[in-house]
């Protein structure tokens, strides 16, 4: 509410509406779904933990694209806030994941997620 009233005060009434050009949000959601599925394929398929991390980034980006598409569709900025929070979580995940990869490399373990099964129950 606060945001809307402030932005309306700053902007002149009718001229500042931005129409949405190009494809509708459904196409963006299709791209997001395909990205998510591609990332899931990488996570399931690849054995190198570095590429598993890269594929996780693709999955997170697919989610981000859906969030931003719905933010534009609903005219609500909260989706963009969520996308930025997801970006911060992804950065944290990369820090911890790459730290693990470097630690495994230092212990001379093979970088193969099929062989790193010491914790298997």
């Amino acid at each position, binding site marked *: 509410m606060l*945001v809307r009233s402030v*932005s*309306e005060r*700053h*902007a002149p009434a009718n001229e*500042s509406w*931005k129409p*949405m*050009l*190009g*494809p*509708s*949000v*459904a*196409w*963006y*959601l299709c*791209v997001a*779904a*395909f990205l998510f*599925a*591609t*990332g899931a*394929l*990488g996570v*399931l*398929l*690849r054995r*190198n933990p*570095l*590429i598993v991390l*890269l594929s996780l*980034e*693709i999955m997170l*980006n697919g989610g981000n*694209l859906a969030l*931003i*598409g719905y*933010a*534009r*569709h*609903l*005219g*609500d900025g*909260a989706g*963009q*806030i969520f*996308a*930025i*929070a997801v*970006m*911060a979580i992804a*950065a*944290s995940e990369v*820090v*911890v994941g*790459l730290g693990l990869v*470097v630690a495994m*490399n*230092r212990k001379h373990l093979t970088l193969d997620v099929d062989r790193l099964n010491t914790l298997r129950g």
Partner: protein
Amino acid sequence: MLLASAGNVLVWAVWMGAAFACLGSGIAVVSFSNPFFSALALIGNLASLAVLYLLLSAEFVAAAQVLVYGGAVMVMFLFVIGYIGPRQDSPWAGGPSWQVVGAVLAAGALFVEIVVVVGLKASGSLAHQAKIDSSFGSPSQIGRLFLTDHLLAFEVTSIVLLVAAVGGVILGHHSRRESAAGARALGVRETRPGQ
């Protein structure tokens, strides 16, 4: 009217380019055998996603995507890949095993599932976009939302980043004595990574 339709065609063309670059580079990340090339393809993926964000009038998120992801995170990835050395690991080598077939089937099922669910639940309402004004997605609006409605998310994110930084330091920390003991316990002779 003519101007509007010309703009529409232009946006469609940019969207097609960005979307296909995005999908192609995503597939390239998954299927390159060298992790270095996968990371480079992911940079292309992030850049084309930033173009899509711009088309969705999320200017601040697009800039943050390029700076944070394409800049900081990917530099870290490339640094680690250079540190541990490129290891070839072809996903399609050795013919189709049951794992490859299962992974492709599972990913395809995920895609179909998402499209069907979104199509069933929201296909009618996706045609009409809400009106937004020109400040939508600008840094001032994002900052205002962050510090009013979503203050808790902002603070929790900062704590998560702090925890991740501490975790990175703990994972990266090692003393010479510990690594020698670990190498003895694993029964490997101590080598330097470069050798």
